[in-house]
């Protein structure tokens, strides 16, 4: 039953957390982080000897609730718990530098976010997916408006409006699926989805694309993203960029592969992703706010991941998993260091990088940016290379060209940032970084370099994961017994 722990423990934490605040002001934070450490170690222990299907919990198939922990969902669970642990450790050290507030609420929210992201990845029942979709949404809205400044509330309202519209379309799609197929189980739907009348199939696909499109931040439904990132605090953006979007992306393509195994809309989705990347990178060029700039950079990377997933073949999915891994870690570094910078200089304007005087932070951010760019020897390279190679093999050269152009634009503004960081300047105030933060940044950066230099550390695992994700037949037999 280990896979239920990933969902049950963080939710349970929310219920019993009022008790902890009685035992001193740091108890909540420590208990929360310990729990996340436990979950991370648990997922690592499952990872050591992972079979393609680690655990299937299916109560009374096809009617009951079912959770499936496959190799690929284990990859996401490990990534999420690891990044959440890093975030919590960072936040605990960051908290010491600001006046104490009772932040039980904050820890409840990040644990709800973790539980729902894991729930999205594990559940194989479309209504459960809807419920976790909403839980992740609600905790993200509150985290976004957490500071209660006008701009944070504005971001929260915009996020909530788009999220509510998305959920209407998702419920509509689920209703039509149930009316036509009579089941909510992904395996059962997958068996008969392709035989539906063409019009119904198209309608459901469009509703699902719009419903998830808001959440996976795909062009043209991503107009809200930059506002939300700018309004929310920088450390919360880490969670949005590294965990929430990735969970939604996974569940969208999981559903897509199960429902349309023949890849009917593959070409359309490939170009949607490529155009999404190009538009995001073009807009990113003229941004002057760092949070906003990295929001657009996230959108660009998500377009790339979308394209890689949309190819619906082994190499593409493997490439997408690589990019997800590299992007999540790199964006964690970037947004957490932005938090440190913003705390010190109290601004997120791009000019602040000129004042930045901390060689450690500069080097770490440089590593993260190079990995995002896809320079060889950094983790981002492998994924980008695999994606471009697969696009070339598939013969979609136009999409490949669009992505290369977008990468070029990406390079332009990243090198502008690097130029700002390493500009020669008169005496600058030294930015002190405490030990915990240094350890966190250094370990994340080292992971990026190790995975980039020796891709074989993870490549077999990711290849197996890609195969598991694409293998509908065994998913259905596992789920239905």
């Amino acid at each position, binding site marked *: 039953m280990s896979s239920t722990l990933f969902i049950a423990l963080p939710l349970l934490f929310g219920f019993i957390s009022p008790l902890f605040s009685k035992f001193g002001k740091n108890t909540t934070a420590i208990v929360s982080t310990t729990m996340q450490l436990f979950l991370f170690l648990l997922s690592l222990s499952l990872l050591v000897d992972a079979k393609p299907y680690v655990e299937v919990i299916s109560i009374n198939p096809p009617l009951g609730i079912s959770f499936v922990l496959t190799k690929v969902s284990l990859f996401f669970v490990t990534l999420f718990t690891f990044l959440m642990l890093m975030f919590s450790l960072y936040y605990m050290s960051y908290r010491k530098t600001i006046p104490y507030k009772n932040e039980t609420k904050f820890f409840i929210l990040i644990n709800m976010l973790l539980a729902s992201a894991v729930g999205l990845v594990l559940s194989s029942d479309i*209504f459960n997916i*809807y*419920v976790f979709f*909403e839980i992740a*949404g*609600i905790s993200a*809205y*509150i985290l976004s*408006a957490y500071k*209660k*400044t*006008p*701009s944070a*509330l*504005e*971001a*929260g*309202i*915009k996020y*909530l*409006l788009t*999220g*509510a*519209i998305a*959920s*209407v379309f998702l*419920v*509509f799609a*689920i*209703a039509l699926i*149930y*009316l036509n197929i009579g089941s*909510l189980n992904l395996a059962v739907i997958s068996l008969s989805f392709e035989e539906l009348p063409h019009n119904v199939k198209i309608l459901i696909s469009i509703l699902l694309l719009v419903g998830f499109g808001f959440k996976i931040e795909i062009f043209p439904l991503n107009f809200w993203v930059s*506002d939300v990132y*700018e*309004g929310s605090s920088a450390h919360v953006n880490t969670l949005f960029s590294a965990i929430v979007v990735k969970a939604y992306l996974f569940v969208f393509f999981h559903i897509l592969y199960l429902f349309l195994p023949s890849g009917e809309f593959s070409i359309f989705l490939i170009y949607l992703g490529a155009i999404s990347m190009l538009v995001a990178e073009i807009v990113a060029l003229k941004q002057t*706010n760092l949070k*906003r700039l990295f929001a657009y950079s996230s959108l660009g990377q998500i377009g790339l991941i979308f394209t890689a997933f949309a190819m619906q073949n082994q190499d593409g999915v493997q490439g997408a998993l690589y990019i997800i891994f590299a992007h999540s870690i790199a964006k964690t570094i970037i947004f957490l260091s932005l938090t440190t910078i913003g705390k010190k200089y109290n601004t997120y304007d791009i000019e602040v990088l000129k004042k930045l005087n901390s060689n450690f932070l500069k080097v770490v951010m440089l590593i993260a940016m190079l990995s995002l760019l896809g320079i060889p020897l950094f983790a981002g390279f492998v994924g980008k290379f695999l994606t471009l190679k697969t696009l070339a093999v598939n013969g979609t050269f136009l999409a490949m060209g669009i992505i290369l152009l977008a990468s070029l634009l990406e390079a332009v503004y990243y090198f502008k940032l690097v130029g700002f960081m390493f500009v020669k300047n008169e005496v600058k105030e030294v930015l002190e970084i405490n030990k915990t933060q240094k350890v966190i940044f250094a370990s994340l950066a080292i992971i990026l370099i190790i995975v980039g230099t020796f891709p074989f550390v993870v490549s077999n695992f990711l290849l197996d994961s890609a195969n598991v994700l694409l293998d509908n037949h065994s998913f259905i037999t596992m789920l239905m017994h």
Partner: protein
Amino acid sequence: MFEFFNQSEVIKIIIIVGSMSLFLVGLFGLLTQKHIIKTFISIAIMESSVFLLFIGLSYKQTFLAPILADGQQNFSQMNDPVPQAMILTAIVIGMAVLALGVSFTIEYYKLTSKTNIDEMTSLRN
């Protein structure tokens, strides 16, 4: 005279047309209204139209409630309880999101005394 409306096909058509027009009303409100609370109301209308469609189409008039009582021995000729359970959950979730949105709006109004979406410009576009 009203027997015509009692046929199940006619009821189905009424439900489809009615809920879809309700959906369009909500969509229209969402696109035209500028007051934040009004946009939330529009979204609530859209949501309820989807709930109405789902419940209406999955309900069969001649079938009974899915309860084994009053001499009923098996589950034949009974309505499917899944859509109703689902929609109850969805209503609760929609309610929670709406309440959260309204509370955000109140906080925002207290700080800035703005309620118009077009005036929400502290984040550059």
